[in-house]
């Protein structure tokens, strides 16, 4: 493989990885706080692309405005799903909440089929995002650059919120101990709502960048990216925000480079991701950046 081709693949991997990272944040934040695998997160991601599509095409909004509308609507969807399906189960066994999440996932997926039909919709990208840039021998689409830059910006904002604001402090305290946080006058319900809003908003950013990169929308499009982003969260150390970013980048890179080096096995690219997951779980169950928590007897 020539150096140029390698760099080209590296750029592709970096941009795919940053999308996974954005989606993975939602999984890892919710897991960190509620110990819930939010299987509906992939569907929230899917909805964001449809919000974008309708804002952009039907209501003819300028692209930046439709981005904002899509992010806001997705954040609201995430908060609503928490309010309706997860909050009433706060004191129930965790498996009930998981089933509830699966129910929400089914609901959103089929609601999308009813509202938007199952026929894939092609998304017309704004011309700005079709441009190609030439760096030496490698050609890079502007969406690739956009996804890396935009992800970096949003992830920086997120880090600021989580580690430098009071809301972030509340989130971190809830993830350590929900009961004690309540005693310390943390508004648990509000903080969890905010967590879902932030996670969903980041999924929407990921969804927008995804739609710009793979401009075809269908109701099941959230399943595989959702599952892979979740794997990214686990690989990075679930519950750990920098871990989700590292995991996302690692997974995106591995996926692209696997296909690049072994094109004959490209049908197995998803299997390769799952194999990485199982190996990481076996040898470093707490993920790349996870803390090792000893079980007390």
């Amino acid at each position, binding site marked *: 493989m020539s150096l140029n081709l390698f760099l080209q693949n590296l750029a592709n991997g970096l941009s795919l990885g940053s999308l996974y990272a954005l989606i993975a944040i939602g999984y890892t934040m919710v897991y960190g706080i509620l*110990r819930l*695998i939010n*299987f509906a997160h992939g569907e929230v991601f899917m909805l964001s692309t449809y919000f974008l599509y309708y804002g952009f095409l039907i209501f003819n909004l300028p692209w930046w405005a439709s981005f904002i509308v899509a992010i806001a609507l997705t954040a609201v969807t995430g908060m609503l799903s928490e309010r*309706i*399906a997860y909050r*009433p*189960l706060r004191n*129930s*066994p965790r*498996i*009930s909440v998981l*089933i*509830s999440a*699966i*129910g*929400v996932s*089914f*609901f959103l*997926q*089929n*609601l999308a*089929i*009813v509202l938007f*039909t*199952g026929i894939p919709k092609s998304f017309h990208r704004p011309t700005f995002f079709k441009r190609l840039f030439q760096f030496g021998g490698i050609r890079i689409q502007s969406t690739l650059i956009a996804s890396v830059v935009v992800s970096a910006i949003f992830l920086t904002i997120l880090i600021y919120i989580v580690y430098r604001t009071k809301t972030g402090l509340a989130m971190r305290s809830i993830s350590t101990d929900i009961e004690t946080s309540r005693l310390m006058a943390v508004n648990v319900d509000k903080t969890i709502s905010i967590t879902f809003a932030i996670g969903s908003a980041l999924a929407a950013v990921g969804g927008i960048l995804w739609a710009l990169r793979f401009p075809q929308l269908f109701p099941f499009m959230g*399943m595989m990216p959702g*599952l892979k982003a*979740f*794997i990214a969260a*686990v690989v990075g150390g*679930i519950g750990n925000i920098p871990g989700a970013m590292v995991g996302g980048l690692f997974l995106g890179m591995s996926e692209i480079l696997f296909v690049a080096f072994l094109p004959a096995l490209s*049908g*197995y690219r*998803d*299997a390769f991701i*799952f*194999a990485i*997951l*199982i190996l990481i*779980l*076996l040898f470093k*169950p707490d993920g790349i950046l996870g803390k090792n928590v000893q*079980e007390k*007897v």
Partner: protein
Amino acid sequence: MKKQNDKLFTILALIVLGVLVYLAESNLDAYKLRILNLGAIYVTLGVSLNLIYGFTGQFSLGHAGFMASGAYVTTLLVLPTYYKEMIFILEPLAWPFTVMQAPFIVALLLSGLLAALVAILIGLPVLRLKGDYLGIATLGFAEIVRIIANNIPQVTNGALGIKGIPEFSNLWWTVGVAVFTIYIIKGLINSSYGRALMAIRENEIAAEVIGVNLTYHKVMSFAISAFFAGVAGGLFACLLTTIDPRAFMFIMTFNILIVVVLGGLGSITGTVIAAFLFNFSLEYLRPIEAGFNIGPIVIPRIPGLRMVAFSVLLLIVILYMKNGLLGGIEFSWKGLAGFIRKIFPDKKSSEGSTR
């Protein structure tokens, strides 16, 4: 109530069940039979998942993978030879599979055995993981099985799937296998093995301290669970007569998990009821999306509305019945007798009994 009476009642109930199956087979149309068959297959799947998750406490999301392996083994063994030559168009079927043939029951057993073997191989390393991590790892394993099935057209016909599988599954088979599964798994959990499994569920460290071999018991439970999932996969293939890898996505596992949780974890009775309710409600919601008239208002055909209604139903059930439909109650003749006595109190027993 004496033990012998229990046995007698069980035999009587089985005879009644046999008569019901006979009546159903000879009177119901193909559509209704399909729903009942699916329900019975879900019973097998649900009860087997309940063994590893409900009774052993190991969160396994790998059932779709075991089903898939079982479905393909059965299919390749029962598909007529001339048909095998005809159907594999992408790539011809690889050698040993072209000539392999077996009667249905042998095919089912081999499906189960292969699934159990796979479970032992994957379980030995993976069952060291706990809780959600185990769930994710087994989910990953099931997806790997599906992706492999997608990529070996010389064995599975790839994404095209295999059509025209002989329709061997009928109520005798599906209900028979379901009863057999319940019999074996109930026997297992009432034995010392079962108590070891439940000890592992309650507290692994404590179980290990009192001398339960964790690896051995977990892997055994996992393998038995996988065995029945594999058999159910074979039944599933011979019921639908067509399979392709997409049928075994993780949604399939979720469906089984829903059945087990709605029925109440660790309750076989609950699983049986939930398995049938799950399939009935899926089918009886069908008219919703077919389009209908309310007076002058014409509601057009809306594809997907059935599943929207189904997911809403699922959410309502899980939100309002937090411990499942039966709340972990297990059926027993004694319990039934007590229940009947409560509804129809005759003077003698109602005076004397204070519960």
